[in-house]
């Protein structure tokens, strides 16, 4: 669910029409007594409520490091996607136990941007937001209205250890913008290619490590009346993620930085072209299940996890939880790192794309900034983190939580294995999210996977998006090194 490779696109479908919204407004209007002094403008209410970060004080000590006032009701708006919101409610219950009288009010939302936009403008944003999903708020638009969360990292957790010492390496990077640590990404996501352990064992297949092996497996699959891959229309860019991962493994950091910094001809890089070319061969060989460009993405994923019509599916580690109810019995989901292009890549075959996702933010204008931070601190406690991994079968950024049996999940075990095999060869890239490119890339990838675009078309059109953003001076660029 790292925002862009949005898994939880359950939220993309139903938007209220402008008409229905207006109609609702009209109904409300009937109830509004006339002559009520109408707020001047949509922006008029700003600054009405004072920023209460230093607010009516509670005492600061190790048990309450941010000085949350007594009897605070923490207002948390949480993205209701693949992970639901109950893990925050769990932390809220723990918090209520630590601070008698205080509670957390957790409101689920799938429309973070539309729902919170008026609250940000009106100066009364919630105390804690999980700014995730397809409708998340772009970070460049609200960055200066967010608290720096470094003090949470330096605070002791509920068990008394400094939080910084309990986290995996590098997990703060995705939430750091310039020198501001504005978002705490709570969930550790591992990207890879997922398959059914039982199905592979039964047929004597081994998961591929290179694209050539994948192609050979495609031929095997065809013999068994199955496809190698499938895709859903809203998730076509999962294959872009896979292609970029392979290219970075093949060509090293140079490929990654060119893409991240929107360089001219970055999509024409040899490693990327080699990946596109072999993908195109697989498409042309008919190893992709046709019709993906018209299939809703969870329906497509169910064709993989439940009907097992295809062998492999590239995705983030949220996939197990997302498809929990639609996975065949004894599926034994397992993952492998994205494939290498040649036998001698720049990074080892075990190199892994992994990053922290689910960005939690605390708006500076919130009523109880301390409350928002305190709830986050509780979420980072051993108890809350264990609860998350156990119920969602995904690792958090808190290390040493998942036991060797992965709470009975083969996918979770396989994630932990991939992470330890990768060691320090862990990379990530953010340009698609940072500049909001996914929506524009989706139609291109749908056509490519459909077999209607050549590698040259694909390259040209992806480059056009990169170039448009690179040349648009109104968009702030974030230099990546």
């Amino acid at each position, binding site marked *: 669910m790292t925002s862009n490779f949005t898994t939880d696109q359950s939220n993309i479908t139903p938007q209220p029409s402008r008409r229905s919204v207006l109609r609702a407004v009209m109904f409300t209007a009937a109830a509004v007594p006339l002559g009520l002094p109408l707020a001047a403008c949509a*922006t008029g209410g700003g600054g009405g409520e004072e920023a209460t970060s230093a607010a009516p004080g509670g005492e600061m000590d190790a048990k309450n490091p941010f000085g949350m006032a007594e009897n605070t009701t923490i207002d948390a708006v949480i993205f209701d996607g693949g992970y639901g919101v109950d893990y925050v409610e769990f932390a809220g219950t723990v918090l209520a136990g630590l601070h008698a009288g205080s509670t957390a009010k957790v409101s689920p939302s799938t429309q973070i941007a539309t729902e919170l936009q008026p609250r940000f403008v009106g100066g009364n944003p919630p105390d804690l937001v999980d700014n995730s999903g397809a409708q998340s708020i772009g970070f460049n638009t609200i960055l200066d209205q967010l608290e720096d969360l470094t003090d949470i990292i330096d605070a002791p957790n509920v068990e008394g250890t400094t939080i910084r010492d309990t986290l995996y390496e590098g997990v703060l990077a995705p939430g750091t913008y310039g020198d501001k640590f504005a978002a705490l990404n709570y969930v550790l996501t591992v990207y890879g290619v997922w398959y059914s352990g039982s199905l592979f064992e039964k047929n004597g297949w081994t998961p591929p490590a290179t694209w050539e092996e994948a192609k050979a497996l495609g031929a095997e699959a065809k013999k068994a009346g199955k496809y190698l891959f499938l895709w859903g229309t809203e998730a076509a860019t999962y294959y872009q993620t896979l292609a970029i991962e392979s290219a970075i493994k093949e060509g090293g950091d140079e490929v990654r930085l060119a893409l991240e910094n929107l360089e001219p001809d970055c999509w024409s890089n040899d490693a990327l072209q080699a990946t596109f070319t072999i993908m195109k061969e697989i498409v042309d060989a008919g190893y992709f299940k046709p019709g993906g460009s018209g299939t809703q993405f969870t329906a497509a994923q169910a064709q993989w996890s439940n009907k097992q019509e295809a062998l492999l599916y590239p995705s983030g580690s949220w996939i197990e939880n997302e498809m929990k109810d639609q996975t065949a019995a004894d599926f034994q989901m397992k993952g492998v790192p994205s494939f290498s292009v040649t036998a001698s890549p720049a990074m080892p075959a075990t190199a892994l794309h992994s990053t922290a996702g689910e960005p939690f933010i605390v708006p500076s204008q919130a009523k109880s900034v301390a409350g928002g931070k305190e709830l986050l601190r509780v979420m980072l406690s051993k108890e809350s983190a264990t609860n998350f991994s156990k119920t969602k079968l995904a690792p958090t950024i808190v290390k040493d939580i998942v036991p060797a049996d992965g709470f009975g999940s083969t996918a979770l075990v396989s994630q932990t294995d991939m992470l330890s095999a990768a060691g320090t060869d862990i990379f990530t890239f953010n340009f698609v999210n940072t500049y909001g490119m996914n929506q524009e890339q989706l139609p291109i990838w749908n056509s490519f996977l459909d077999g209607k675009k050549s590698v040259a078309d694909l390259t040209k059109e992806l480059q056009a998006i990169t170039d448009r953003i690179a040349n648009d001076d109104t968009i702030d660029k974030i230099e990546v090194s």
Partner: protein
Amino acid sequence: MTAIPGAGQVLPAGEGAAAGPGRGPRRGRPGGWSFDTVSFFVVFLGLPLALFLVFVIWPFVQAAFYALTDWSGFTTEFDVVGLANFTTLLQDPRFVNAVGNSVMFGLFIPLVTIAIALTFAILITVGGSGRGQVRGVRGSGFYRVVSLFPYVIPAIAVGIMWRLILDPSNGLVNGVLTGLGLDRFESFAWLGNVGTAMPVTMFVVVWGFVGFYMLLFIAAIKGVPSEIYEAARIDGAGRWRTSWSITLPLIRDNVQTAFIYLGIIALDLFVYVQALNPQGGPDNSTLVMSQQLFRSAFTEGKFGYASAMGVAMAIVTLVFAALVFTVNRLAGGRNERGRG
């Protein structure tokens, strides 16, 4: 979101005119402002007008103002940038493409919907047996009820339902087609091919609206005195001739209103396209203005720019309405002021 035509406008003229408050006895006029008059004006004119100003006109004015700013939507600060948003808009290939798609929807959806609705309406009211009383085809009451069903379903449900029906692997459409032996429709993505995505989207919208407009036309045709039909029939006019020379001219104002209303729906279309093809369709072939507007505002954080798109949409809609009026008048229609 131009004003939705009042119910009176689409009803037969006779019913609309009688309800107007304009021609009543003028008792109070010379005597000045009695309590009756004042309270009447306050309740029936003042209140709706105030609501209209506050909840319709004022947001319009605000949107027009924000269109001149670089407001991000999430802060209280912004700069006025003049017409810069509009010049960017004209050079934005994504928006130009969206306008093109919207115009296609705006052209075809009203045409097809009205053609079908009118045909059904004529069949149900006057298309029946050529002998005896003028009446519709047998079982017309049943058809009338059934054809309204799609309109009763909320737009979003219609969209989701059709998306499932059109699913390449498990959908009803491909199931039936492959069942008939047409193997090329095995896993055919109706919404995923440039050639079919837009027509299919149009079909779904038309499917949703035909019943309602049929009902409107039935009401209009019922307002035509049956003597006219009888006279025409005595003169030897067949069904086709009667429809073309009697029915259509007599209800042309209703057709015009329906055309404009459908055009407004088709130029918006947000709910349908968002349900059928949320990412804009293959090669953005079903991306419409309202979707691009929503993206600019909420995912790209450009409310000023999005407001400019809104203003542009309003202009396109007004131009559309003006075109319909002009075409109708050129084609020999009466002055639209002649009727309610």
